């Protein structure tokens, strides 16, 4: 199980990397942590002419708060993100999703950008990005594109990234101080890709009025999706979790395969949305109480 022979490039700067990418196009793959690409290379499922290792480009490993968003460099490792106070404070949903990503050892190397670029339908970081309403910043030698996460993911392993572009950063809207967030997931074993996962963010304007609501679902469709929950806005949160879970289960078009039937994925959608919404609501109530 050894990779095909390839040319290895390790640019030190972003512009070097973009030059290489422009030059090599779809004959090149970008290597960051290698937690997904590494196995695919070893299995010879990915057979590139060139591998561009961006793991030493320091500009890609930053976290910053810029206005209303937190910007994470694509090369930031999952464990760095997990131990970041900025992320814990400003993007709690991502902080809640990260412990579900792989294992201690893979998070030490795996990156946020790598997970988003790979676009596994079950992956937690893409789901968190979609649920947050985040943005993917793509850069090529010719310029920059910013694409909303909800448009970025096209299908299983398919995104809007063009071969000459690389993900430079992810933008995560900062959480409102009174928002409640929750992330729930079912996987066969600890650290496995989710069979289904749900993310929820909720804010209450008054104790009985839902001001903001987001429900994201991963692993069920061929990419993470945000459910259209506009009809629940302005309502009382009382029975919301149960209703919302039914609604979400009816909204998804689940995949149907060996690892999980469509019926099972639908059933899990219901369970997980209910769990996530209840949990997010109780946090939102606490936050409201705390802030008043």
């Amino acid at each position, binding site marked *: *199980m*050894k*990779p095909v022979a390839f040319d*290895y490039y*390790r640019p030190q700067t972003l512009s070097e990397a973009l030059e290489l990418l422009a030059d090599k196009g779809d004959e090149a793959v970008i*290597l960051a942590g*290698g*937690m997904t*690409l*590494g*196995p695919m290379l*070893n*299995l010879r499922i990915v057979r590139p002419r060139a*591998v561009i*290792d961006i*793991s030493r480009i320091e500009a890609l490993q930053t976290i910053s708060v810029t206005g209303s968003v937190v910007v994470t460099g694509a090369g930031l490792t999952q*464990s760095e993100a997990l131990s970041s106070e900025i992320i814990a404070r400003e993007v709690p949903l991502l902080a809640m999703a990260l*412990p579900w990503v*792989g*294992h*201690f*050892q*893979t998070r*030490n*190397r795996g990156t946020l950008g790598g997970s988003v670029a790979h676009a596994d339908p079950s992956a937690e970081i893409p789901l968190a990005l979609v649920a947050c309403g985040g943005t993917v910043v793509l850069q090529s030698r010719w310029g920059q594109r910013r694409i909303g996460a909800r448009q970025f993911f096209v299908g299983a392993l398919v995104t809007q990234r063009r071969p000459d572009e690389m993900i430079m950063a992810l933008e995560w809207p900062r959480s409102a101080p009174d928002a409640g967030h929750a992330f729930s997931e079912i996987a066969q*074993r*600890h*650290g496995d890709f989710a069979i289904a996962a749900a993310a929820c963010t909720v804010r209450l304007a008054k104790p009985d009025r839902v001001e903001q609501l987001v429900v994201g679902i991963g692993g069920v469709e061929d990419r993470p999706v945000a459910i259209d929950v506009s009809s629940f806005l302005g309502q009382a949160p009382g029975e919301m979790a149960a209703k919302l879970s039914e609604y979400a289960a009816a909204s998804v078009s689940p995949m149907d395969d060996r690892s999980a039937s469509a019926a099972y994925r639908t059933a899990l959608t219901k369970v997980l949305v209910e769990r996530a919404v209840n949990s997010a609501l109780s946090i939102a109530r606490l936050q409201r109480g705390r802030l008043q």
Partner: protein
Amino acid sequence: MLLCDFLRHELHAFAVHVGCEHGVCGACTILIEGRAVRSCTQYAAQADGADIVTAEGLAPPGTLNEVQRAFMKHHALQCGFCTPGILCSVAHFLRQTPEPDERRVREMLSGHICRCTGYTSIVTAILEAAAMMRKGS
């Protein structure tokens, strides 16, 4: 060349064991810049200039560290093939989490597959080693 192949067959660091070559089993785990990572999903060229520790280097020659002693005491290894990788993970983990509870130890261990022990003795050994290290420091 895979980093694990380079360490094993060029540098003869045979403590680096290769169990799956796709980043799942954890046998090839080493410390790069102090962090526990798989060496089968990296290439030797990537590690150029990096500080690498394998299980050979976890304790001075002829001695065992606290974790190794606890593994011996609690029979936390049988065939021992997965053990060097686990020891590297534990070294990083206990530095980061000096007071772990059983749940956290098991979560950390879930990045390794051991088919001999059923894990229980490994968990016991790690918890005890953590306690001893806290006492010692």
